[in-house]
């Protein structure tokens, strides 16, 4: 392999776009496949149009063990040989590229739209076999298992609870699930398309609502990028507040998830308590900025709000109370035989599969894989205050639940520590014009896992392209794999144990 196929990137710094290597497709393809086989993984892979009617494919690879990032690019016109057959991690990315830019990844094993929208370049025909405009989610050809005793179950897009829409197609033999195909796209709002040419006054609000339950994490990833592109420095205090907000977001969602898991198996005590305590965590975020989801808190240059002495005391007090309540509610789970019987061995996912698919977040850590942006690619306060990575080996619903519990405890300890020394300086700052013709990558460990934002600027310092990869983008396929050979009645439990974002995937 040519050593110049990849350009190393320092996380949190910019690279001039002209320095990104552009090998021809055969070299690019071979190098990426080889790099992934060596243990790297794809954190982002996307296309954007160039002046001469071609599409530039840009890939960002991460090596967790070395904490290193590297990038490469190549130009394609109408079609290229798909990477997916030799690199399963590319599966969803290549379908996205095909849908957005009408570029055919030839030989892709399952080439279908993932969001059901028209190609971005106006007037261009889709490259999908159905031709014309895609019919829409829920109306497509699905993977089918033939056989007299095989039956098909269709669920959604409108589900039974207060939950976002998506379509699930099961191929079943009795109760047993042979195969689950997950088809999303219902929530597609066109965020990435509207981020182009930004940042403008709407940009931060698109980012904050990309996945509304991960407002803080997405806003942090965005701010890291704009701060890198404008060489802005933020104060220690702003870093601390951002870190606290990120962990509060994790605490609220992890607590809610443990409650919801209990609810799905009919264990009402933990379900009721955690449902309420989740609100206590959200209200702590509202203490910081007035909004339970952290809207308006994280802004380029720092945070829009500070926390005074009284606020710190108040937060520390509430932290103690919520910790006691959460511990009491959650420990009931592990002490109750009927709960453990339902959690253990359900929806098991092997480390090998999870690794090959490039899963992220608690889902991958529950398979015993140590992968956490806060440790591998730390930014902000996490460069100074490490949170130990929580893992479990069994890869089942129990593991995904237990990893959440471990993370809850460590996030609480982290916040408590930070409140003792919240750092100094103004919390809010301004950023200047963005550096032109540059690229930057930002990784943040949201509560669901790794959030990756890539910004490409044009010659005026505007976004030529802004790519968001929500953790759900990696993980939905993991859920499909975890369902193989399971009882269909366990789907709600397995689904909740991943608790993935529909809008974060559909953007």
């Amino acid at each position: 392999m040519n050593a110049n196929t990849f350009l190393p990137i320092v996380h949190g710094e910019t690279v001039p776009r002209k320095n990104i290597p552009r090998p021809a497709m055969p070299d690019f393809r071979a190098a990426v496949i080889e790099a992934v086989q060596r243990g790297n993984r794809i954190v982002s892979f996307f296309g954007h149009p160039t002046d001469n009617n071609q599409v530039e494919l840009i890939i960002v690879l991460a090596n967790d063990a070395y904490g290193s990032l590297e990038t490469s690019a190549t130009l394609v016109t109408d079609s290229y040989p798909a990477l997916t057959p030799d690199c399963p991690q590319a599966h969803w990315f290549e379908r996205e590229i095909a849908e957005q830019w009408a570029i055919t990844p030839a030989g892709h094993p399952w080439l279908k739209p993932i969001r059901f929208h028209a190609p971005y370049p106006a007037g261009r025909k889709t490259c999908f076999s159905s031709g014309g405009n895609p019919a829409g989610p829920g109306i497509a050809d699905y993977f089918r298992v033939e056989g007299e005793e095989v039956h098909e179950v269709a669920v959604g897009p409108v589900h039974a609870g207060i939950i976002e829409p998506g379509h699930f197609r099961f191929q079943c033999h009795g109760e047993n699930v042979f195969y689950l195909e997950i088809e999303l796209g219902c929530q597609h709002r066109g965020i990435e398309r509207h981020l182009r040419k930004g940042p403008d006054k709407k940009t931060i609000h698109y980012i904050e609502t990309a996945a509304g339950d991960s407002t803080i994490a997405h806003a942090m990833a965005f701010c890291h990028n704009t701060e890198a592109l404008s060489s802005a420095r933020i104060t220690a205090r702003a870093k601390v507040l951002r870190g606290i907000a990120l962990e509060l977001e994790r605490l609220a969602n992890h607590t809610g998830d443990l409650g919801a898991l209990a609810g799905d198996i009919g264990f009402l005590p933990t379900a009721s308590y955690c449902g309420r305590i989740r609100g206590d965590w959200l209200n702590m975020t509202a203490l910081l900025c007035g909004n339970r989801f952290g809207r308006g808190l994280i802004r380029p240059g720092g945070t829009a709000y500070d926390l005074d002495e009284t606020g710190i005391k108040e937060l520390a007090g509430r932290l103690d109370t919520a910790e006691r309540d959460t511990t009491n509610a959650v420990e009931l789970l592990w002490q109750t035989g009927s709960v453990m019987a339902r959690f253990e061995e359900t929806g098991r996912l092997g480390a090998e599969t999870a690794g090959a698919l490039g899963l992220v977040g608690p889902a991958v850590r529950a398979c015993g894989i140590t992968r956490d942006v806060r440790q591998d690619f730390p930014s902000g306060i996490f460069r100074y205050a490490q949170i130990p990575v929580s893992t479990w080996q069994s890869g089942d619903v129990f593991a995904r639940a237990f990893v959440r519990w471990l993370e809850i405890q460590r996030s609480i300890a982290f916040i408590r520590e930070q409140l003792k020394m919240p750092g100094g300086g103004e919390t809010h700052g301004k950023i200047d014009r963005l550096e032109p013709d540059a690229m930057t990558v930002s990784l943040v460990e949201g509560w669901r896992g790794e959030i990756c934002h890539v910004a490409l600027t044009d010659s005026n310092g505007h976004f030529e392209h802004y790519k968001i990869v929500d953790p759900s983008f990696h993980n939905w396929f993991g859920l499909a794999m975890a369902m193989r050979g399971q009882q269909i009645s366990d789907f709600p439990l397995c689904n909740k144990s991943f608790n993935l974002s529909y809008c974060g995937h559909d953007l």
Partner: protein
Amino acid sequence: MRILTARMRQKYRTYDYPRQKPVLPERFRGRPVVDGQSLKNSEQIVQSCPTGALSVGNDRDLRLDMGLCIFCGQCEKICSGTGIKFSREHALATRRREDLVLTGKEQKLAEALDKKARQLFGHSLKLRQVSAGGCNACEADINVLNTLLYDLGRFGIQFVASPRHADGLLITGPVTKNMELALRKTYAAVPGPKIVIAVGACAISGGIYANHDETLNGAGSILKVDLFIPGCPPHPWTILDGLLRLLGSLGHSH
């Protein structure tokens, strides 16, 4: 036994709403108060709004459309509170879209359903929730109404799994094109008479997703909406207040 002791530890938590007013955080951005006076820099304030919720009246006075507002507080910062100030008032819901436009005058909050509809729904309102492009913040804070603190069930309101069992729809999100058909079908499956409730800026107007090719401009684009609950997302108390106003169950204390 462990479960019983945990039950004692976790205590009784349901808040005595609406008899007691909810306690909202210091920095909470509730109902905006529009000054109504003529302002010199009104154009600049209008320009600062990310969703175009602000406009200038004939008298150079500001108007704020709560249906578009995402309560980001940018306008308040720019005018340093002289034209627009966000209060901590949580009651925001209205029955008519135009009542969401705030001027210097007092806002007209939602009136109850007529007598016949109240007889039908007043003591038992079953709703089917449909997320049509929502970001999961509105959805999450609707879900929260089922928790112990809010205990929605005590007001006779329940979210049900099937539209066939529902008296109406509660819609979130700007209504993406990819959800339009599903939303129409779900609405058709609800037996009449039925009501439609739009929760959040997206569902009321499209919010920041208004005028995207990928979305419609809220539930009102395809259905007649009976109750608008603004916010991004609305606080759970705001949603509960709206539902209770609709059913006429807030009593005279409010």
